[in-house]
């Protein structure tokens, strides 16, 4: 059978048959084709870039070029998990797991918090309830050339090396998407910085659609032959959201949307300082997803427990009195001479041998043994692996060596945690 080509089809009304409009769109059983190919008034549509929109797909086998689950390389991108707390005036990792704020040169501390998405907003209707939120302090001396303020997230090296992104190729892509909201309507910059080998940076601009208005950002990033990611537990890429970088770190001629060798003095275009110099200005972020491929897909919502388990590789609060008064069980303990010690198991294994983050205050803990209770202030790290830690109270205890006992909290704010953050 030879090929058939229809040209100069006659116009007809109705919804049946095959129909090509004057723009070249073809419809089958469609009143008016809305895309390059439109079957059944939108039931199946193919757009000019080859993207198909289908109402329902019934299939025996579905083969996809990108993975269908575990697409999002970002952990806790919906900002649901906040093991350390929900508000802090310190920088670093203090609230939402895996996200931090950092910088230098500010006059007044900023407040970082796990914020809430208001009902009725578009992020809310898409299932987002929490944000990573920064509230500015009063930067009374204004913006300086050396001042820096950013929020950031660090991806572990092996999570990039094994992601499926052929990062050395300029025809292989990852796509970053997120929602953000700023009380100040100005342009900010996002910078991706690779950490292995010769560090490289990629920057792009984001501008909200208005003050205090949620804006969805989607940005596709191509690979580069200079990128390097080891298959290990080190730092891979840090994604910065620059709220303000002074001119010591920026240039007016900075080139956006391309990888280049990292330069401390050329990380972004010169920035307006409006947000930085506005007391109580806010910036919120949620729904952050980095996925392999050139097309954005809907955010991969994960259950709270799944996300919590992922976070625990980097920070694990193994005991929390959760605000409850009275003695609460923490662990088993055993006395040695002038000390009481216990072993704690971290599940899952942590990224590296972790630091101990533990309450320190008068009589915060107690060990009960041989019908006697000893109160003490805190414990320290003795030995550690990625899975186990031996912690010891070496002052304030006076039990008999060789006796076992119970380690308990003795106040409402007691916690024991381990940090192996990047």
């Amino acid at each position, binding site marked *: 059978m030879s090929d058939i080509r229809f040209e100069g089809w006659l116009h007809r009304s109705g919804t049946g048959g095959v129909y090509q409009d004057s723009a070249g769109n073809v419809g089958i059983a469609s009143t008016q084709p809305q895309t390059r190919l439109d079957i059944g008034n939108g039931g199946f549509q193919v757009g000019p870039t080859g993207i198909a929109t289908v109402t329902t797909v019934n299939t025996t086998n579905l083969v996809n070029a990108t993975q269908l689950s575990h697409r999002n390389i970002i952990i806790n991108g919906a900002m649901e998990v906040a093991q350390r707390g929900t508000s*802090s005036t*310190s*920088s*670093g*990792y*203090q609230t939402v797991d895996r996200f931090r704020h*950092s910088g230098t040169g500010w006059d007044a501390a900023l407040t970082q918090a796990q914020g809430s998405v208001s009902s009725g907003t578009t992020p809310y209707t898409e299932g987002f309830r929490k944000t990573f939120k920064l509230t500015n302090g009063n930067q009374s001396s204004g913006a300086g050339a050396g001042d820096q303020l950013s929020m950031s997230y660090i991806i572990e090296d092996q999570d990039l090396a094994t992601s499926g992104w052929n990062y050395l190729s300029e025809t292989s892509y990852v796509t970053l998407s997120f929602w953000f909201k700023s009380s100040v309507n100005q342009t900010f910059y996002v910078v991706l910085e690779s950490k292995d080998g010769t560090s490289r940076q990629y920057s792009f601009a984001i501008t909200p659609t208005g003050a205090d208005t949620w804006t969805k950002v989607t940005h596709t990033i191509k690979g580069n032959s200079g990128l390097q990611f080891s298959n290990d*537990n*080190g730092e891979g890429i840090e994604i910065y959201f620059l709220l303000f970088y002074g001119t010591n770190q920026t240039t007016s001629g900075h080139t956006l949307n391309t990888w280049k060798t990292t330069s401390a003095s050329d990380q972004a275009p010169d920035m307006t300082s409006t947000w930085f110099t506005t007391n109580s200005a806010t910036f919120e972020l949620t729904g952050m997803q980095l996925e392999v491929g050139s097309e954005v897909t809907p955010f991969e919502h994960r259950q709270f427990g799944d996300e919590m388990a992922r976070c625990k590789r980097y920070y694990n609060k193994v005991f929390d009195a959760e605000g409850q008064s009275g003695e609460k069980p923490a662990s088993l303990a055993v006395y*040695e001479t*002038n*000390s009481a010690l216990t072993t704690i198991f971290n599940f899952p294994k942590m990224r*590296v*041998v*972790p*630091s*101990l*983050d*533990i309450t*320190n205050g008068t009589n915060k803990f107690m060990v009960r043994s041989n019908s006697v209770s000893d109160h003490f202030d805190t414990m*320290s*790290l*003795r*030995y*550690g692996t990625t899975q186990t830690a031996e*912690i010891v109270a*070496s002052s304030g205890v006076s039990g008999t060596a060789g006796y076992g006992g119970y380690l308990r909290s003795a106040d409402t704010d007691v916690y024991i945690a381990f*940090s*192996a*953050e*990047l």
Partner: protein
Amino acid sequence: MNITSAKYCINLDTNENQSIKATIDGVEMFVPISEGNTHYDEIMRQVNAGTLTITAASN
């Protein structure tokens, strides 16, 4: 990472340094003497840069 103090903690059994008690971003941490731990690496970076001193342990 803002580190405002660092002091070795001693293992009473072996009399060797077992960890570093440090205040990092306002939070007191017991940092293992272990490369790869971000806190330890940053402490040593600042020590090598001459901007931080680790105080000896007190028995």
